[in-house]
């Protein structure tokens, strides 16, 4: 299934002009600062916001110059920033509202289990906490039997624990239903995304694989103070004495602190923040840092007064290091230089 659109419209002071297509699988994160038009684009895709242009989802034409499919005829599930549960209905009433109206109603029991809301079914929506309400909203979106899920910053306002719980559910759901996920939170991008659209001032300025966009020096993500690279690796041995898990990236072994062996067989994602990487000419002796790997400089760029971002190749993967401009000069950091990267912290993402 693929989604392709070319849309333009005016909302208040903000002009939106976007064009993109994607093979709709997994999570695509629509990322950008507040006010860049992410939510508006999502509303346009849902048919809630008037705009000109075309939207095509697989074989279905959702919008052309002649026809505009109304929201209730688009096979979508949607979550807004606020849970927006129907206030006059119970939790169960909210769920059956959707099931009654969507022909191919989803499986209530399965969705209720998946979102862990069994205990909430007979509650009034006014009594739910923020996390509970968003889980109900997610269940309601799933019960629409959607072919595409549009999630508009669904985790804003939730605490860390509830965020992680919902992020896990979204990842799980995205195995079956393509998800477009709006956020301005880098952490959510790193957790969820294989595919990212970057939005600025009403336009999609870049789109591509998340790990490539994250490390692109001329892109907006590498300019950030919290710029982070995403690497893919294979799980290796577990050192039960020191509680360290090995992950192999491009024939190099990274050691991660882990209380117990990490399970799973897929390629695992490693997040490495640019500020946690330092560079040196020789292999340092007697360092407390576990992860020191030979890298080649691909490029560098000033990202602030006296600050440089260095893109490094580790095999065919990319790492970022944020160092001072003085260090860059003294170390003779230039494209092609062979250096060692000392990685202070690695997280599984």
């Amino acid at each position, binding site marked *: 299934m693929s989604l392709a659109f070319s849309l333009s419209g005016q909302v208040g002071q903000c002009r939106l002009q976007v064009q993109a297509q994607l093979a709709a699988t997994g999570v695509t994160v629509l990322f950008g600062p507040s006010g860049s038009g992410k939510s508006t684009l999502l509303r346009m895709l849902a048919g809630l916001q008037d705009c000109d242009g075309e939207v095509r989802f697989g074989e279905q034409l959702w919008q052309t110059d002649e026809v505009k499919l*109304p929201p209730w005829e688009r096979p979508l599930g949607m979550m807004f920033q*606020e849970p927006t549960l129907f206030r006059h209905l119970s939790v169960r009433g909210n769920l059956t509202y959707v099931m009654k109206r*969507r022909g191919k109603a989803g499986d209530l029991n399965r969705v209720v289990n998946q979102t862990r809301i069994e205990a909430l079914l007979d509650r*009034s929506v*006014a009594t739910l906490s923020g996390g509970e309400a968003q889980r109900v909203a997610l269940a309601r979106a799933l019960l629409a039997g959607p072919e595409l899920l549009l999630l508009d910053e669904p985790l804003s306002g939730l605490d860390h624990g509830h965020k992680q719980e919902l992020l896990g559910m979204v990842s799980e759901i995205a195995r079956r239903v393509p998800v477009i996920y709006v956020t301005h939170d880098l952490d959510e991008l790193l957790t969820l995304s294989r595919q990212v659209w970057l939005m600025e001032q009403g336009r999609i300025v870049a789109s591509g694989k998340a790990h490539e966009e994250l490390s692109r020096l001329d892109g907006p993500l590498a300019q950030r103070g919290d710029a982070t690279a995403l690497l893919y690796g294979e799980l290796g041995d577990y050192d039960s004495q020191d509680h360290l898990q090995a992950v192999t990236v491009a024939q190099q072994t990274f050691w991660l602190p882990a209380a117990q062996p990490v399970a799973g067989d897929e390629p695992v994602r490693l997040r490495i923040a640019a500020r946690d990487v330092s560079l040196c000419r020789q292999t340092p002796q007697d360092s407390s840092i576990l992860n020191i790997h030979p890298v080649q400089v691909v490029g560098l760029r000033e990202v602030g007064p006296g600050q440089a971002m260095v893109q490094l190749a580790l095999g065919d993967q990319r790492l970022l290091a944020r160092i001072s401009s003085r260090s860059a000069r003294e170390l003779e950091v230039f494209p092609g230089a062979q250096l060692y990267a000392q990685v202070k912290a690695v997280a599984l993402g």
Partner: protein
Amino acid sequence: MLNDGDWLALWVSIKLALVTTVILLMLCTPLAWWLARRRLPGQALLEALLALPLVLPPSVLGFYLLIVLGPNGPGGWFAQWEDARSLAFSFTGLVIGSLVYSLPFVLQPLKNAFAAIEPRQLDMAAVSGARPMDRFFSLVIPQARQGYATAAILGIAHTLGEFGVVLMIGGSLAGETRVASVALYEHVEAGDYANAHRLAAVLLVASVLMLWALFRWQRKQTAGVLP
């Protein structure tokens, strides 16, 4: 307790109040929705006209209604289907007068209730598969139920309390246009204070009960499920 004439007058009052309120609820639903959701040129003027019965002396309203409903107005033309010369001094005429007189009391609560419904709720219903009419019945009306209760009670109460307009266009025909408030006035005019006391007491108690029920229900609603 009450004499037969007063019971009849009370019945006419109640019938008038119920008929008027039912018609007004149906009439004001689309009108209030439109006023709450749209911003169009001339809307302020329209709203001012609709609110006029709140400030205008009822006798002024009654006078104009008399002209409109009378044999030389449009009312006279419509009256020919009822084999009458005029709609004034008929129950139909009273209903028309009451519709105008009580309209703002039904319109305002509905308008406020509709305006309080978040647009997001409607958007969410739309992406949940609900068409516009479906949304109106499955979401707007249930969420505006307090507004409907208030509108209904105020509509009934205000129509029961009608006096000036009825006096101008009603004519006090027993069983047809003599309502309780006019009957009370006639008792006082005739110096029949005993009957006046009884009728006044019934009207007073009925009004208090109605408003008490409304406020009690509203308190319960706000204390209960609705945030």
